[in-house]
């Protein structure tokens, strides 16, 4: 889900080497280097940027970009990798505490630094694989980079990172569980705390505080009041939350780099957010999950869930989609739609969400983070 991006990813920034050991990163780098050799490339540039799209570079370095800046991992076909982050030399000591890559370099001008590095290593000209660069690098930087390596043959390798990141390793699954549990605790807090005489911003501040004290890196909150005439999910505003309001709360967060999200519908009564009985809606969502399993395609699952909804007379709201992959980014592949041929595999993590019109509440919405196991989806946000 799209949310307002913060000015800085400012929560707890640590590298827990037990949760995510160096060997995990080395193994990822080795797998990519095997691809580099197989594709007859000389080097690969893996780029990540900003507060939502840092996944590619983080997957290899564990470094998360905390501002709208870029980071680049350079993998030769053999040997040690190099990491360049956009920033000043003063930041190097701090960055080194969160990455395993010994050759870590700061650069205010990332593309120039990359060009200089490749030239020093005799890699201009060469066959260069790129991932994340066309999609996420700002155009001015992209042009500097491409001009600088103009004699090189540039080959798009986005799919390599995409495929690797879609299927989580056991260590990654554990990180997803940790992040998801905090989402669940966030909803426990919302339904357990009193919010007397308050407005949306204050509610957001209280939820944000609880999540930060849990040690998250980033928190995103959206609110929807489906009884409003033209309601939509939106950032909190200076508006009251009043007795009897139906309120949908979207909560996403990242913990030690990994994202999880959940959505709940509440009724606001006596200063508390009560969880109402959503009746058949909840049942349809649960039933729809049975269509999710290894071997099925994403589009089969999509059509199955909406088919069930249609048969039961539900009026789904599809503005927010049914979900997508999640992991090192809040919005990952695959997107759950009616066209995706991607086959679901054990180890994939998904956000699934469903919204529908409701006479009683205006609209209802639910969503959770799931891990696909051999036996079907395991709800992580519990």
């Amino acid at each position, binding site marked *: 889900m799209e949310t307002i991006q913060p*000015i*800085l990813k400012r*929560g707890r920034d640590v590298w827990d080497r037990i949760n995510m050991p160096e060997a995990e990163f080395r193994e990822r780098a080795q797998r990519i280097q095997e691809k580099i050799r197989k594709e007859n490339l000389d080097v690969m540039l893996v780029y990540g940027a900003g507060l939502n799209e840092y996944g590619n570079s983080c997957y290899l370095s564990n470094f998360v970009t905390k501002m*709208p800046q870029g980071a680049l991992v350079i993998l030769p076909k053999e040997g040690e990798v190099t990491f360049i982050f956009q920033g000043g030399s003063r930041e190097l000591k701090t960055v080194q505490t969160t990455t395993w890559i010994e050759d870590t370099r700061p650069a205010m001008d990332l593309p120039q630094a990359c060009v200089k590095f490749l030239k020093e290593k005799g890699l201009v000209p060469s066959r260069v694989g790129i991932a994340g660069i066309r999609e996420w690098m700002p155009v001015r930087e992209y042009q500097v980079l491409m001009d600088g390596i103009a004699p090189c043959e540039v080959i798009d390798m986005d799919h390599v990172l995409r495929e690797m990141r879609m299927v989580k390793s056991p260590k990654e699954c554990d990180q997803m569980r940790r992040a998801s549990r905090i989402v669940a605790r966030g909803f426990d807090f919302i339904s357990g705390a009193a919010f007397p005489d308050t407005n949306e*911003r204050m509610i957001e501040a209280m939820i944000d505080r609880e999540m930060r*004290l849990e040690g998250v890196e980033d928190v995103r909150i959206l609110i929807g009041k489906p009884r409003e005439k*033209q309601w*939509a999910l*939106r*950032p909190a505003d200076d508006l009251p939350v009043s007795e009897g309001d139906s309120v949908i709360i979207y909560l996403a967060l990242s913990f030690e780099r990994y994202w999880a999200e959940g959505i709940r519908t509440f009724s606001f009564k006596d200063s508390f957010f009560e969880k109402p009985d959503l009746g058949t809606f909840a049942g349809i969502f649960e039933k729809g999950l049975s269509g999710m399993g290894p071997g099925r395609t994403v589009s089969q699952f999509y059509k199955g869930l909406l088919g069930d909804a249609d048969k039961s007379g539900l009026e789904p709201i599809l503005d927010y989609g049914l979900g997508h992959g999640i992991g090192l980014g809040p919005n990952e592949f695959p997107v759950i739609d009616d066209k995706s041929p991607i086959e679901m595999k054990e180890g994939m993590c998904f956000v699934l969400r469903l919204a529908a019109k409701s006479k009683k509440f205006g609209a209802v919405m639910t969503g959770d983070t799931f891990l696909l196991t051999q036996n079907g989806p395991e709800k992580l946000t519990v």
Partner: protein
Amino acid sequence: MDNKIFKLKKALELLKQKGLDGLVIFSSGAFYFLRPNQLNYFSEWRPLGPRNAAVVSKSGKVALLIEPPWDLNRASQKSWIKDTRGTRNFSKDLTSILREFDISGSVGVAGTGEMTLDVYQAIGEAARVVPADDILEEVAREKTQREVEIARKTGRIADAGFNAFLEYARPGIREYELVGEMEFAMRSAGATDNFTLISSGRHNYSMHPASDKRLAPGDIVIGEISPVFEGQVVQICRTVVLGEPDPLLAEKYEMLVHALKEAIKQIRPHVPASSMSIAMNKVISDAGYAKYCYPPYMRARGHGFSLGSISPGATIDDETKPDFEKDQVVVVHPNQYLPETGYLACGESVLVTESGTERLSETKTILYSKGV
């Protein structure tokens, strides 16, 4: 003049001067405090999707293209731009608007620093792209009273953040918990976002996002506290010692406060921004730390903060050419690494007035200590 009419009128004047058929003001949804957030400034709406743009034609037509489309209602309510359009195919719909508005010759593009190749190429297919970040920066140079009041309120929110910093900084609390409490205080005071850096220890090297380090007796805790309100950022930099401060530390911090005061004295309209940095560096150099005033130890001595412009720049140092202008918001920070004390945080944001400066925060810049 009404804020929105002023912005549009001035933008149209500048389009005419530059011979442009129109202007695209793009945002990737990122909010970077060292770069003008031009779409946010122009439209008075903060986008959340990865591709959003306002399109202005030289005849005065304006449209706002919004991704994801479900955010359309919020944009319609927040922005003064009446023609708001949701999109699921941004590049295609953007070029359609360019054609609809007869923008086919040269189009100014603001926000190329955050624009990706696909969008840039799509605009280029409709018209000749001319980088035009300077147009909105020029419009934003003239501040409205409302913008000045927003800066003042943001300064008071920064004080709320510092008061929480002082209250919660104690042995045993972790850095991220301290930042969580500071942020809660600032959000409760009205902040919509916060840029908070911190460090703690006997000898700090720089400030960074919070780690899980527990504060300990004797720690020097430094913080850069920068709340955001209505798109405006104000920054204060503070140092708190957990315990009785070492006399040497107190002496060095006093020197930095002196440097801060001397630097602020230089600030008034029509004076080069470099004078602020030169005055600051002179005090610190005279104390024997000349080499620590420059890279790799230090770089910027301050910078601008504003809604649509960061003039006089993202870095104010001894070489910064532009003059200060009335109503600019400027942070002045002799944040300094000293070999005896480590990195110390000391800084204020000021509003440039006719005759000098107005402090935007009320809490004092002194070396704070807490009994442990």
